[in-house]
């Protein structure tokens, strides 16, 4: 009889292959759980750290309307962080532990947020390019095998595509504006183009975990596939805006019906991953400082809740 029965692991894989969602109470392999916690918490941390480069321009937004849109966007990111931390918690991770891992440097967040935002055009670039790349990475995750993650991603993606449109709108307004505004847009694109291409991760040949993740359906396309898709999507948009993509090797390839493009500066990529980007220290310090300076607030809230509970117990 035993040989006919599937192992737990085989049953699990069979459900995944049948596109059945895994839920928190279901059995799952340890590696699947760990990989998911790492991926979801990294994603949550990215939302949290991602508030900083855009938060940097809220007080300086050039019109009240743009200020309002930007503030709402950063608020959405805080919200995404919350959904995602909750999704990770369903796998048994605690928020305190996840934050401790962020602060110690053990957990990562998206490297793109280690680049500084230096002009208003960067608010356009972050929305248009960075959120654009994020969407390509994330849309497939709406169909990912783990239920809570997939459901969180549905919500996140809906808002992200809204943000992406707003980013494009900023770029469009700049490009239709004064020569200074147009130059600002081009200068922004020059700085953000290559870092955005790096968001899809290392080349497939150097991405050893891809196969397992695709098997578990927590990843659905390879890094290089997504990068190609992104370039093919963005180049016509840049042309529409009248901007020049800063890649001399960019060329339409009729045969593959896609663009050929230059090689990413992988040395820069790995440097930023290793903590040597322009803002790695600042971003982490900002988060650690907020957390440390907020410790007394969290303690006060706990202490008060405790006092209240005791009073209610006495009153009952």
């Amino acid at each position, binding site marked *: 009889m035993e040989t006919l029965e599937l192992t737990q692991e085989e049953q699990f894989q069979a459900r995944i292959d049948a596109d059945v969602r895994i839920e928190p109470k279901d059995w799952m392999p340890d590696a699947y759980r760990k990989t998911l916690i790492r991926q979801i918490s990294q994603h949550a941390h990215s939302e949290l750290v991602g508030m900083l480069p855009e938060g940097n321009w*809220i*007080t300086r937004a050039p019109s*009240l*309307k743009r200020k309002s849109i930007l503030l709402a966007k*950063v*608020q959405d990111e805080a919200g995404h962080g919350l959904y995602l931390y909750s999704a990770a918690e369903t796998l048994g991770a605690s928020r305190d532990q996840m934050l401790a891992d962020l602060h110690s440097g053990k957990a990562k967040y998206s490297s793109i947020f280690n680049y500084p935002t230096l002009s208003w055009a960067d608010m356009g670039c972050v929305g248009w390019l960075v959120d654009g790349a994020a969407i390509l990475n994330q849309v497939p995750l709406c169909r990912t095998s783990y239920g809570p993650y997939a459901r969180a991603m549905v919500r996140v993606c809906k808002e992200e595509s809204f943000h992406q449109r707003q980013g494009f709108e900023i770029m469009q307004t700049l490009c239709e504006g004064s020569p200074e505004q147009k130059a600002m847009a081009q200068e922004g694109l020059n700085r953000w183009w290559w870092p955005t291409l790096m968001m899809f991760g290392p080349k497939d040949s150097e991405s050893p975990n891809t196969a397992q993740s695709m098997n578990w359906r927590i990843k659905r396309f390879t890094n290089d596939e997504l990068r190609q898709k992104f370039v093919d999507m963005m180049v016509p948009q840049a042309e529409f805006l009248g901007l020049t993509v800063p890649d001399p090797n960019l060329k339409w390839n009729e045969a593959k019906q896609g663009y050929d493009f230059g090689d990413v500066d992988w040395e820069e990529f790995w440097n930023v991953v290793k903590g040597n980007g322009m803002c790695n220290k600042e971003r982490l310090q900002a988060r650690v400082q907020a957390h440390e300076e907020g410790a007394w*607030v969290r303690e006060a809230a706990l202490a008060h809740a405790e006092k209240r509970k005791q009073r209610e117990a006495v009153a009952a």
Partner: protein
Amino acid sequence: QAQLFPFVLQLADTSLILAHRLSEWCGHGPILEQDLAMANIALDFLGEARSYYQYAAELEGKGRTEDDLAYLRSAVEYRNPLLVEQPNGDFAVTIVRQFIYDCFHYHLLLQLKSGPDAQLAAIAEKSVKEAAYHIKWSSEWVIRLGDGTEESRRRVEKAIGNLWRYSGELTTPSATEQALQAAGLVPDYAAIQQQMAAHIARVFEEATLAVPEGVFMQKGGKDGRHTEHLGYLLAELQYMQRTYPGLEW
């Protein structure tokens, strides 16, 4: 009705400056949930500011836009009371500043909502729902901090000690406001002052905090005489419009 212009502008400036201060917290709050709450409140105030600026622009009738009014006036032209321009300090300072202003704001909006000016009433109608949430939020935090740990109590008391002197200006009518009160266009501040005091007394009691007494009250903001903080705030707020005036964004 054109007399309303400076008063509406004052309301607009006040909401904008407070929104600005709150938005400075973005990404730096003590708990993610409170980051979200402060961004949310900042958004409410920013929205309210825009409604007032748009109405003020209409009242003025000189073709200025909401952005012209917000971005192209200097510190001595700004009309917000001193309280809202005070720096964030620690979370306790932000909470006390917010709490004092919420107490005023909520009761002011209740009055404006049923006031004689239809457009102000409409803005107040919408905003008072948000303000009800704000006053609840800041009251709860005053209670948590006052009746929390020793440290939180020390910090919130210090914040009260520093900010209380700016509370009186809110309900002390400026010359402009006095004239409008006489015309029935601005509510009676004495009544609002009583409502504020009652709410504050209730919250402070629950927070086991003492209501300060005999504090000399600062004023001047509503007449354009500000503290030195506002200039820096405006340099940041207005930098883009000052640098590139008259463009679309």
